């Protein structure tokens, strides 16, 4: 049953009435209405382009709605800028962290505060900084530490603490756990629950199903700029919610695995990376997807990077298609058949300022050039072919990569690995970080198809649901070592989670 909280109480903490936002002829969101109570955690779900970020920008005063009203405690408000929204008690904890790495914890907490004093430090200011850190469970953190010295989870918690120091009673958290490991996620959850207890109203944007059910009271699903439904979490079954989010049948998300494995494509023995990986061995066959799971610091990400030739001091015996590979050089690894898709799409994965077409063929210049001259027609034909293979809209090949959604950017990164004369090993870190459910399904299909063509895939992911659904074999890592290996049939989220956190529980 759809709940209408507006009917339950006459005045909501935060209400959005019939908000529409148009950019010229394009309607970003249409007729959106929401109402949230004090102490409510509302999940906001939907794929890229669903209109979530436009709604957030309107709520935080970054953009003004074309029509419609926002009301706080029953009083309608028109936010002219982010400062207005801040003063009304609304704060955004952005997905791309908004902390200055060279500044201290204290300075970052007060950065951008509408009513910060002119002095850098005051006794009252430091007191409030400590109180807000305590509220998110960072009681023992020094105010003088630089942000660059903190873990990602701590940074995320500091973002939330910054919302509190601004006296925010309504927080919008935009995928706060996207880059965190399971154990770090627990810390963020604890902080969010504590905020709820203190009466904070929270809008929690996420792509992860598990978080909706574990943390949230109610869920609003958006698609194509409209609200599809708002329901209490306990009233909506998991499968139904997933289908509402992606707008298609659930059985289409994870493709079935292929039981016919080919020859051994990748054999790794005694891989070591000083300070990160102590011992890692694995064998991956053609047609197989193997997933490495571990928390941040377990060595999983570093393993993939070392195999891609990106770590200068990695050692170990690595054979690709029975040929010995020297570690430590990305070009050598690439020419041997290693294809790497980075976890850091913006900095390593794609060229943000170049068109999608150039990105798609950026690793194929030797095939599309003759005597140093690029052949545009051949290049275009190749780009179109690759786009079709990875499900990228060929009409958007001319668009600058930086303007595409996370899902489409990731398709470009994967497209560079596809359609080779020579089969090889595809190495991926966090294959669907920041990618919505719809695009995820397409990426999973593509990976499976690349396997069917004779490639092998080795990926590291912190998204357990993805690992259990997608891969043929799971390798768990802990403290730089392999903790266990499981086949798809006997791997469940709980057994994997127990294994990657086991040592820390015992300690």
């Amino acid at each position, binding site marked *: 049953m759809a709940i209408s909280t507006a009917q339950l109480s006459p005045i909501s903490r935060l209400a959005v009435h019939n908000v529409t936002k148009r950019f010229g002829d394009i309607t970003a969101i249409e007729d959106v209405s929401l109402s949230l109570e004090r102490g409510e955690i509302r999940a906001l779900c939907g794929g890229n382009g669903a209109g979530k970020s436009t709604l957030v920008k309107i709520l935080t005063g970054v953009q003004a709605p074309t029509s419609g009203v926002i009301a706080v405690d029953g009083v309608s408000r028109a936010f002219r800028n982010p400062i207005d929204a801040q003063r009304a008690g609304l704060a955004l904890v952005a997905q791309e962290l*908004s902390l200055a790495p060279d500044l201290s914890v204290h*300075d970052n907490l007060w950065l951008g505060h509408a009513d910060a004093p002119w002095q*850098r430090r005051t006794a009252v200011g430091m007191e409030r900084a400590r109180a807000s850190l305590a509220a998110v469970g960072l009681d023992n953190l020094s105010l*003088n530490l630089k942000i660059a010295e903190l873990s990602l989870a701590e940074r995320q918690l500091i973002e939330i603490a910054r919302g509190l120091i601004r006296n925010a009673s309504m927080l919008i958290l935009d995928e706060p756990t996207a880059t965190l490991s399971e154990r770090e996620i627990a810390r963020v959850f604890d902080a969010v629950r504590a905020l709820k207890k203190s009466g904070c109203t929270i809008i929690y944007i996420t792509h992860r199903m598990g978080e909706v059910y574990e943390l949230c009271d109610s869920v609003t699903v958006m698609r194509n700029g409209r609200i599809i439904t708002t329901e209490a979490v306990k009233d909506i079954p998991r499968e139904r919610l997933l289908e509402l989010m992606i707008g298609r049948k659930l059985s289409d998300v994870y493709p079935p695995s292929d039981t016919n494995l080919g020859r051994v494509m990748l054999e790794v023995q005694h891989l070591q990376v000083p300070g990160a990986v102590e011992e890692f061995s694995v064998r991956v066959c053609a047609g197989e997807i193997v997933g490495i799971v571990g928390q941040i610091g377990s060595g999983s990400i570093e393993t993939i990077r070392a195999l891609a030739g990106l770590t200068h001091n990695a050692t170990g015996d690595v054979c690709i298609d029975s040929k010995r590979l020297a570690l430590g050089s990305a070009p050598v690894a690439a020419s041997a058949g290693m294809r790497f898709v980075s976890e850091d799409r913006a900095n390593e994965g794609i060229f943000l300022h170049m068109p999608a077409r150039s990105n798609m063929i950026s690793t194929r210049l030797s095939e599309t050039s003759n005597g140093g001259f690029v052949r545009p027609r051949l290049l275009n034909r190749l780009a179109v072919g690759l786009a079709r293979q990875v499900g990228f809209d060929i009409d958007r090949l001319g668009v600058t990569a930086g303007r595409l959604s996370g899902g489409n950017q990731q398709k470009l990164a994967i497209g560079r690995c596809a359609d080779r004369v020579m089969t090889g090993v595809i190495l991926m870190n966090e294959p669907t970080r920041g990618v919505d459910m719809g695009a995820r399904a397409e990426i999973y299909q593509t990976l499976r198809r690349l396997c069917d063509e004779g490639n092998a895939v080795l990926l590291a992911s912190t998204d357990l649901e993805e690992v259990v659904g997608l891969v043929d074999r799971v390798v768990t890592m802990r403290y730089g070592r392999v903790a266990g290996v499981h086949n798809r049939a006997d791997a469940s989220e709980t057994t994997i989670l127990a294994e990657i956190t086991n040592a820390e529980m015992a300690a």
Partner: protein
Amino acid sequence: MGLIGEEKKPLAIFGVVAISLAAALVMQGNTSVELILFSILQYFATIGPVALGLGLTMIAREFDISVGSTMSVAGCIAVVASTSDPYLGAACGIGVGLLIGLSQGVLVTGLGLSSISVSLGFLITLAGFAYVVTGNMTIPLDHADVTSAINAPVLGIFSFRSIFAIACFAIASFIFLKTRAGVELIATGSDPTAAATAGVRTTRIVVIVFMISGGLSAAAGVFLTYGLSVASPSGLTDILVPAISAAIIGGVSLTGGRGTPIGIALGALTLCLLNAGLNALGVSPVAQQVVLAFVLFTVAVAAAPQLYRIIPQRS
């Protein structure tokens, strides 16, 4: 944070250079310490404020390379406008410097241009403008009293100019370490997008930093010109390299967000000591360039991010 953390390296470099200079002077039997200190501070008065302005733009992840020309133009304008009143001339010179900074800041932030290309344009334009203002001639200042007042020693080793420079650094350090504005400047240089997301008005910060850079360069130019008692359009463009060197030795990062006014002051003083020491030892100006280059290179190598690859690490 603040005083001890970031300035360790520049302080160490400064210490090494100062001790070497002292040792060299003792061995030479040079006794005119007061005179040497005075000349060191005079040189500091010239490059210090310029290095500070340039360094602040670097901390904000911009680059104002027009400082030398700004200095030159401001000096020429001040002398030309000072026929009746030297104070009016100084005000005109410094005002023009602020205006130059404002224009550059607005161009960089408003049009999203690279600060290097904008300030390079200003560098060339202003250098030409200095010749126009002076009619390609050397113009003398008609206020001998002003010149002698500006150069007169105070407490033996200081002068009006060096006190002005020291005051600039003191004020900048206070703002940097103690105020919200300082925090916002570092945040802007450290990660402009993050700072803007957090609510910092980064555009305003960048414009103000360019105005400070223009104003400080102009003031240094005006006072130097008054001190020399003559304005020459070709005079002061050699300031850029020492200013950048001072900022880098002082620990300012080329990628923004790092560096402090005290660090820049130490960097500038290091150059002044080198200059004074080498002069006292009778080293030719050409050879001095080589020594300066060597110091800069050492600093650059010591800060190299991939140094660890070459030096074996103990586990």
